[in-house]
């Protein structure tokens, strides 16, 4: 078990280090998130809609689109120069590779999701203070479920001739539960409702994340075998 853990850590470390040095994906995702916030601000007619009422939905949409932008390129760098073959031929179990990729992507996306939360709170003058810890937990669960599905299907779409254009077609239909539970809970918490009211949503979001990670860990080996 400790060997397994070490292997996962080694791949996570490699991926995070690559990202820290190149800053490719985090810059793209961060810029996307902030710019989406700006555009969304002008897409709301404030004479008919209160921006606060739709902010939770917009945050999750930004997270999904921005996340797809970054997670879709998980295997891009390694696929280009055949380095991924090296990772695959190493004695690391395939599910460890998947879990490591999920953890690395999660770190990236969770950082972006906190940025999104901050930016939207600023742009839409949201009062998130009292429920901030719970909102952060909910964003973590949502990011985890999303990253697990998107990483699995990023491996699929990287292996096809269509590449990343295929990713939204595969991932979006599966994300409905995440959006329903995520928006349902963050929206109410941002409006100052008590946590008890959204506990069911949060539990379902956790179950969704768990199922996504488990399914990905089992199925990943069939995607990357050659």
């Amino acid at each position: 078990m400790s060997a397994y853990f070490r292997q996962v850590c080694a791949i996570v470390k490699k991926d995070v280090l690559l990202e820290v040095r190149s800053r490719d994906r985090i810059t793209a995702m961060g810029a996307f998130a902030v710019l989406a916030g700006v555009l969304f601000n002008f897409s709301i007619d404030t004479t008919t809609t209160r921006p606060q009422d739709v902010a939770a939905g917009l945050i999750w949409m930004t997270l999904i689109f921005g996340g797809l932008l970054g997670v879709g390129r998980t295997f891009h760098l390694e696929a280009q120069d055949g380095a991924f073959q090296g990772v695959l031929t190493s004695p690391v179990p395939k599910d460890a590779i998947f879990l490591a990729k999920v953890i690395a992507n999660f770190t990236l996306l969770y950082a972006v999701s906190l940025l999104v939360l901050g930016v939207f709170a600023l742009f839409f003058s949201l009062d998130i203070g009292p429920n901030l810890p719970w909102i952060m937990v909910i964003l973590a669960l949502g990011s985890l479920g999303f990253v697990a599905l998107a990483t699995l299907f990023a491996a699929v779409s990287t292996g096809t001739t269509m590449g990343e254009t295929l990713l939204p077609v595969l991932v979006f239909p599966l994300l409905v539960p995440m959006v329903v539970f995520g928006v349902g809970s963050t929206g109410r918490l941002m409006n100052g409702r008590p946590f008890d009211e959204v506990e069911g949503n949060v539990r379902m979001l956790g179950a969704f994340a768990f199922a996504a990670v488990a399914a990905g860990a089992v199925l990943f080996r069939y995607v990357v075998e050659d």
Partner: protein
Amino acid sequence: MSTAGVRRGATGFTLLGLAGLIGLFWMSFFWVSTEVNQGIVQRIFYVHVPAAWTSFLAIGIAALCSGVYLWLRDEKLDRAAVCAAEGGLVFATIVLLTGPLWGKIAWGTYWNWEPRLTLTLLLWFVFVGYFMVRNATEDPEKGKRFAAVVAIVGAIDIPFIHLSVIWFRSLHPEPVVAKPDGPTLPGDMLATLMVGLGVFTLLFLGLFLFRYALEGLRSEADLRARRPAS
């Protein structure tokens, strides 16, 4: 079973299904009594519900065969999965076309985000993705594996989608047949519905076997085309 045998079975099921379809149309247009509250528009129910049942059956077969294919790697299972998925897509399209026609009159709107509608639409998209993945790989083996993964993840997601959409208030009529205390549907309506279920299942089996035989012939042709080159 040989390809010729499969084709004979396919012809038999399809002919039976088509004959049954004429019977079903006669029953639902002329024989069955009109429902009191909804009126004439309710008759679309005898096409809509059997199509929905068949599409879920087909999608179930596709997901099951995909799962076992990844395990055993038997070509026949992949062939069965792709044929069932295609049938599921066709019948789900019928569901998505007949539902709004009824909804416009009964609900006053073509579409709403009711759980069963949403689930059918999303499954339809999952299986569109299934075929896109399948056709977007240079190596057919890879396409088969990728498609199987899409089908399995789609199947795992179904309960979550269903539960999540129930969070919204439901407009769809409650089940009238599969209930714990027995069907509440009047006898003639129940009979028509049961005939519909039988007919659509037969049609699906016929189409499924035709497609299965076709896939068999195609892989045989591929094999022959490759042989002189190697």
